[in-house]
C-alpha cells in the first residue's frame, strides 16, 4: 500500500518543460570570455571546473527556480531537473570544490546590468530576448542539447 502510494506520488513529480526554441549563454561585450564549448559549459554548470579553457575564473548565474530559462538551460545543458541540480551543487559545496551556488538573477534586465558590471559573469537569456551589448558564448537549442 505504501509502495503504491509512493509510486503514485512519484508519477506526479515529472517536470513539465515548455517547448520553446532554447536559451543562450551570454557575457558582456567587454568580457574576456569569447566563447564556450558545450563540454566547457557542462563542466562549469556541473561544478566540475571553475575556469574556462583559457583560464578565466567564471562567475555563474542562473534564473529563478521554475523559470523557463532555468528549466531549459538545465535540461538542454545537463539533462537534469532543478532538484537534482540543486542537490548536486550542494554536494559540491560540501566537498569544498565550489564556494556557493550560482547567483540568481531574476529578470532579463538584471542579467544585462549584472553582466555589464561583472565581465567574467555568464548569464542566461531566452534565445529570442534582446541582447544589446551582450555576446552569445553558447546557444542551447533543442537539437544541440540532445
Amino acid at each position: 500500500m505504501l509502495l503504491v502510494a509512493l509510486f503514485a506520488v512519484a508519477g506526479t513529480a515529472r517536470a513539465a518543460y515548455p517547448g520553446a526554441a532554447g536559451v543562450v549563454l551570454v557575457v558582456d561585450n567587454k568580457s574576456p570570455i569569447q566563447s564556450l564549448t558545450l563540454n566547457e559549459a557542462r563542466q562549469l554548470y556541473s561544478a566540475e571546473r571553475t575556469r574556462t579553457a583559457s583560464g578565466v575564473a567564471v562567475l555563474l548565474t542562473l534564473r529563478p527556480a521554475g523559470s523557463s530559462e532555468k528549466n531549459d538551460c538545465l535540461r538542454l545543458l545537463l539533462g537534469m531537473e532543478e532538484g537534482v541540480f540543486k542537490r548536486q551543487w550542494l554536494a559540491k559545496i560540501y566537498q569544498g570544490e565550489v564556494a556557493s551556488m550560482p547567483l540568481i538573477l531574476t529578470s532579463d534586465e538584471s542579467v544585462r546590468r549584472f553582466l555589464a558590471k561583472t565581465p567574467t559573469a555568464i548569464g542566461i537569456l531566452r534565445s529570442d530576448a534582446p541582447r544589446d551589448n551582450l555576446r552569445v558564448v553558447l546557444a542551447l537549442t533543442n537539437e544541440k542539447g540532445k
Partner: protein
Amino acid sequence: MVSPATTDFPITFHLFGDVAAGYQDAPRSLGFALGQLDFFAQAKLTDSFRALVEVVAEFGSDGTTVIDLERVQLTYQFGDWLSVTLGRTHAPFGYYNTTFHHGAWLETQIGRPRPVAFEDAGGILPVHQTGIEAFGRINWSELSLGYHLGVGNGRGVINDDVLAFGDRDLFKSLHALLYLKADRPGLRLGGDVYYDRAPAADSAVYPLRDRVIEEWIIGAHLVWQYADFELLGEYYHVRHTPVGDAAPSVTHAYMAIASYQWRMLRPYVVLEGVHFDTNVPDVFFAPEGETLESQLSGRVGLKVWFADMLCLKAEYAHSFLAPRSNTVRLQVAFGL
C-alpha cells in the same frame, strides 16, 4: 534587480540533520535515535582564497552531546589544476570519504559503509587528516585527470587517536590519490596510496603496542554514473607491520553501492565487508589483544525524495558472518 546577496556577503551556511528508527534481532533492540547535526559554513575570502568550517553535534548513547570540530580549512586556488588546502580535512581516500562524509541527506543509504567507518566507530582508515593538501583536476574535453597529494599528522598510537592538535612523532603521513574521469560514459577510476608510521605506545597502557607500526594503505575505486544509474565500488588493503622482525597483519575491505534514480525514488543495494588477518593479530586495531571480528553484510533499501532538501530512507540489512543479524531501519534526513 540584481540580487546582492552572494557578492556583498560571500558566505554560505548549510545544516544537515537526521532522525532514525531501527529494529535489530541479534542482539534484540528497538528504538529511535538522533543522528548527527552538521553545521557547515564556507566563505570566499578573495577571488582565490576560501575558508570552510564544519562542526558536528553528536548524541552519545549515554545521553551526552559531543561537539566535534570536523573541518577547518583554508584553501588557495591557483586554478582548476591546483588548489592548496591547509587545516583539518576529510582524507582523500577513494570517492566516498570526500563526497559524502557527514550529512545523512547526502548519502544514498543509512549510515556509512563499514570500510569507511569513522575512526571512533571502529573504522580502519584515517578518514580525517590534519595537514596540507594539494589537489586539482586537468580537463581535456570530456576527460579529466584529478589528483590529491597530502602530508599530515597521520595516526596516533591507537585507531581513535586522531591528531588534530599536534603530532606524537616527527614522521608525517604521506597520501596520494589519482583518478581519471570520463564524462561519457560517466566513469571514474582511481587509486590511492597512504604511508605512515604510528608511534609506539606507553607499554604500561598498551603492552602489545611497544613498537612503531609501519602502515601502508592501498586503495582503488570505480564510480559509474550513467543517466540515472550509479555504481560505486571501493577496495582497501591495509598493512600494519611493527618495525623489527614482526610479520605484517593485512586487512582487506571493500564496498559496492548500486542505485537507480527513478523520479523521486532511489532504490539501492549495498555490499560491504572488512576482513581482518586471522593469522597475525593486528595490534594497531586491537592494542589490548581484543578479538577483531570480520564483517560481511548486504543491504537493500529505498530513498524517497519528498522535497529537494528532505528525504526518507527505508533499509533492510543482513550480516552474513557471525554474529549474524537482521536489521530494519528508517531514517528521515534533511539538508538546508
